[in-house]
């Protein structure tokens, strides 16, 4: 039994190390001098400590200084990409959570003809993998002239998410009727009940969905890759990939790239620090239902 516990702890430590080490390695590389790194690649600490990679990634380094530390000359406008990601993930999340909540209220708390049929039809979307609608959606965005716009990036996901509607409806079905009925007796209409009672009572699951949707959208790569090819709207995931691809293969500026990667992952890491516990619990919850 005691041996078993030791083995289990050993296993856990190894798993945690493998999970976390790459994050440390990003930091270690991002604080290294790109030239010096090749002389001591296995050093566990930053090689020839410098803030240079961050300056290069943020476009603050002079070309001469960048070249001296092994910058590749490939440029990335990280501030712009960061802003694009905020707009893309922020707007999409806001829209989809609000519209899903409204629909969920109608499905959970109102009684109307056709309700279950409509709900069943909308749920079929859960069965279809996104790959199948992405290409035709690209063609649609092209027809609408929305390529390289935030509209084109956001619209397909803004109004409808089967999972979000389902998730919120499940929660709203469980709310007790008493407050609601008191309000109705006082003469409140369904819209008033929705905005003043049911939605405020559903803040917790809406926050969970906001968090999960924001993370997935922030990390999405395929859809932005299809609809954008211009720096002005390109989000971080794409900007990073382009940055790597535009660097010469032989002398890749790994330090600069890792600095950029860290900046890109930073908002997610901040979310993690603030909401980590809620996130862990909500993942468990979405699975069990």
């Amino acid at each position: 039994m005691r041996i078993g516990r030791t083995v289990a702890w050993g296993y856990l430590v190894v798993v945690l190390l493998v999970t976390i080490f790459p994050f440390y390695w990003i930091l270690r590389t991002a604080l290294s001098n790109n030239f010096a790194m090749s002389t001591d690649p296995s050093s566990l600490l930053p090689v020839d400590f410098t803030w240079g990679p961050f300056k290069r990634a943020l476009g603050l380094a002079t070309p001469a200084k960048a070249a001296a530390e092994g910058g590749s000359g490939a440029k990335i406008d990280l501030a712009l990409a960061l802003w694009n990601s905020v707009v893309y993930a922020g707007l999409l999340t806001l829209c989809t959570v609000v519209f899903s909540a409204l629909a969920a209220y109608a499905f959970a708390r109102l009684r109307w003809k056709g309700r279950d049929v409509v709900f069943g039809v909308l749920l079929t979307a859960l069965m279809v993998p996104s790959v199948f609608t992405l290409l035709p959606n690209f063609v649609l965005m092209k027809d609408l002239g929305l390529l390289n716009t935030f509209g084109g990036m956001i619209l397909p996901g803004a109004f409808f998410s089967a999972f979000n509607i389902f998730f919120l409806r499940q929660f709203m079905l469980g709310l007790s009727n008493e407050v609601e009925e008191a309000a109705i007796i006082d003469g409140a209409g369904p819209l008033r009940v929705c905005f003043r009672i049911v939605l405020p009572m559903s803040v917790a699951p809406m926050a969970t969905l906001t968090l999960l949707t924001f993370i997935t959208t922030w990390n999405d790569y395929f859809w932005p890759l299809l609809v954008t090819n211009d720096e002005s709207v390109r989000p971080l995931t794409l900007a990073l990939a382009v940055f790597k691809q535009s660097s010469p293969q032989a002398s890749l500026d790994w330090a600069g790239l890792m600095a950029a990667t860290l900046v890109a992952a930073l908002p997610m890491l901040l979310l993690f620090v603030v909401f980590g516990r809620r996130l862990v619990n909500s993942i468990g919850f979405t699975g069990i239902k």
Partner: protein
Amino acid sequence: MVTTVQDSSAQVVRGPATTAPPPTARRRTGPASRRHDTWVAWLLVAPAILGFGVFFAYPMLRGVYLSFTEFHILTPPVFTGLANIQELIHDGRFWHSLGVTAYFVVLSVVLGVGVSLITAVVLHRLGVNTTVRGLMILPFLISGVVTALVWTWMLDPQLGIVNQLITWVTGEPIMFFGSGGWAVPTLAALNVWKSMGYNAVLIFAGLQTIPASIYEAGRIDGASEWQMFRSLTLPLLRPILVMVVILNVISATQVFDIVQVSTKGGPADASLVLQMYIYDKAFGQFDFGYAATMSLALFLLLVAVTFTQLRMARAGESDTN
């Protein structure tokens, strides 16, 4: 996803909707129905229906239609009947990429679910706190692009830390992304690294629903830890394991970002997963009709695989019911 569908059908049975309910049921299922509920309801559902129609149903039908056309984006699609399907059948590269995808899916699901299960059980039996579980989901928070970038760097044949270690032990580095044999297993490992914590937390939540008294009973009967795992934990965990497997199969089948950023399907098509090939056909060669045919095939394949899995695993029920 699985539980989703089942829950919804259960719901339909529970809540009497259109038929006039008896007074007691009426109190339970919601506020009294009023005549103007109906138009308010439609108003509230309108954005969702609009989104469903314009960005899901219409593109889906269009996707099916495009599968039977020759379409190069700049000129309107031309209906060609079964020509694309004929091409598909004789396209060696398609079958190759299907094989690569299957290999990737099997590796990452078997390895991923296995490691996640062990991790979840260890976390559960050791009674580790939320912070540790939190650290485990860190990789879930970062994008596939970041995952691919950092591992490409760590696995770099000359300068990567992992290969420094390997060279120190065996004398020569491993070309993880650069050799045909290693490419797919390496990508699968990346996928496992990224999704393991998330899966472990899901399975952990399932473990928490198993009452501790069952284990106590097992212990009194003299069962070893391994016996309890095999005859108590596994059967009771079956529904959630099935769900985790299916979710992982679905996402692994559509793998794209880590491949596109690290190997681009190479070397020599060794890691050309299906989604990569579809993307290449559509945006590299502008052969949209054929790309649509392939995504239709991928979709049908996913449906078939999911249903087979559900059937084989008898999903909804754990062995004890």
